[in-house]
């Protein structure tokens, strides 16, 4: 429960990392993987890369700015539960969208 003192250096570095990832997100958005790669459906790589960057940014914020990295296992459990519940929301919602066209 004791407040963990994090050196300001760490916050600055995390902030710098977030800014780099932010620039990366914008830059990647201008790259069209469908044109670069020979197989069809390569456009999905754009989405995957964008999501990966977004998740790493969220992880940095949760771990450092929200102090989860320095917290008890119980806090970890609740933080992970939040992520799992988001995954439930996305997975079951997409189970509708991805299977709608099966029945024609």
């Amino acid at each position, binding site marked *: 429960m004791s407040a963990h003192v994090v050196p300001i250096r760490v916050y600055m570095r995390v902030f710098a990392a977030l800014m780099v990832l932010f620039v990366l997100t914008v830059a990647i958005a201008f790259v069209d993987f469908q044109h670069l790669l020979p197989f069809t459906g390569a456009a999905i790589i754009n989405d995957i890369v964008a999501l990966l960057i977004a998740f790493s940014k969220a992880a940095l914020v949760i771990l450092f700015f929200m102090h989860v990295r320095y917290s008890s296992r119980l806090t970890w459990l609740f933080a992970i*539960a939040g992520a799992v*519940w988001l995954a439930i*929301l996305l997975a*079951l*919602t997409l*189970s*509708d969208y991805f*299977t709608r066209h099966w*029945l024609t």
Partner: protein
Amino acid sequence: MSLAPLSLHKPNYLSVSNTLRSWLLTTDHKRIAILFLISITFFFFIGGFAAVLMRLELMTPHADVVDKEAYNRLFTIHGVVLIFFFLVPSIPGVLGNFLIPIMIGARDMAFPRLNLASWYLYLIGGIIVLTSILIGGADTGWTFYTPYSSVYSNSAVFTMAVGVFVAGFSSILTGLNFIVTTHTMRAPGMTWFRLPLFIWSHYATALIMILGTPVLAIAVLMVAVERMGVGIFDPALGGDPILFQHLFWFYSHPAVYIMVLPAFGVISELVTCFSRKRIFGYTFVAAASLAIAVLGFLVWGHHMFVSGQSAYASMVFSIISFTIAVPSGIKVLNWTATIYKGRVWLTTPMLYAFGFIGLFTIGGVTGLFLAAMAIDVHVHDTYFVIAHFHYIMVGGTVMAYLGGIHFWWPKMTGRMYPEGWAVFSAILIFVGFNLTFFPQFLVGYLGMPRRYHIYPEEYQALNILSTAGASILGIGYLFPFTYLLWSLRRGPRAESNPWDAAGLEWQTTSPPPTFNFEKTPIVTQEAYAYELVSQEDDLPGRPNPTEGEIPVLDAPPQEDQP
């Protein structure tokens, strides 16, 4: 058992101060519970009044009392007010707030000021909703489906949604407080498996509040964003209206368990106390609460079988919906097994508990009908659905809430309620409830759709029965309201433990002092040690057990080894 009269010299949490300021700025969880009690009672009668007007309108097939626009507004008020401003905060806000710290031997909640903030958010949300009613109301129903709430909105939908949004944060803060309190504030010796089941079910409820409510808030925000021209739900802008239903039901199916899990907790306390028995299968009942909290998030698509949702997704949602009957069934069977061969004491709270078990079972089983896709297509959006969820929410939650209010009334107020009147109104409510809602199963199965103010002639007889039942039910609710108010001044003073109950909350005075206990209690046994209590004394009105039968339960016959 101590029969010493209430000490009038030591101040209790009620008598310590009585200025308006001392109430509005209190951080005492017990006073906040009373604030919730007063405010949810107010909203109960607002939502109930809308129901009265609807039942009057439905007495005949024609439009006599209100026109269709007004009827749309009535059922929206009824749903929004009674779900978000009565059922969701009812048991957690009143009984949960009052009892959780006392039951675990704590002085208060982990975050007392956050607890007060939760009540203010509830009140602000409620005032916004009342405002939206006054400036024209909403006609979408409590579900706020797009495009009624977005493209074709022609009423104060958005104001009402903002009220629900604000009240949602009240719910999140309550949940957060319950979880942290249960983790950090337990008295020495109060291990997890000595916790009353009331605590377990509120813990499970709190998890749902925290994990589900933000999604409702996001869905409401998205409707707001769409009104600024961003396409989310409107196909003309590249959106999908069914996405709203996904987000809405991701919260609103689990919200059913926000309403009914606390009721399970109340029933576990009532059934053990008035059967004088340890709960049958403690760990199963506790684990069932958590299982319901998790499984409840995997079934929301059963509301969307006819929406255009993929049939394959519907199959998955249907199957998972069936599995959630298992933990609910465990609870019902374990309460029944607890009552079996118990020394049943038929007080008002126990009558409500019996009512709950029967009505919740009917509501649950008809829920399985609706989880089956083929039957749901037939009865979707009919009165069958209305009857089903009223058996859960009114037959379940409201019954448990009233049972709990009667059970803990002596603890909360220091006064006894009049038993004769209470038994009479419990029976009146049970009869009125069934007469109101059972005919709705029939008329729904025959095909009468919900949300219409007129209907074909052949449905009239069943609708008259339903309206007659609603009149009995409405009068039934006025009785407890009246005699409980009366008892505040005239009721006999309550002892610390009028029910001879085993829980920790009965060890302190009635009403408790501000910090609940004179000194922090040391817990040495679980909350259901009734075998120990009941051997010492006999209470009036309780039958004696047949000697020689009880040990059979405790000691299973020994297997002879060959």
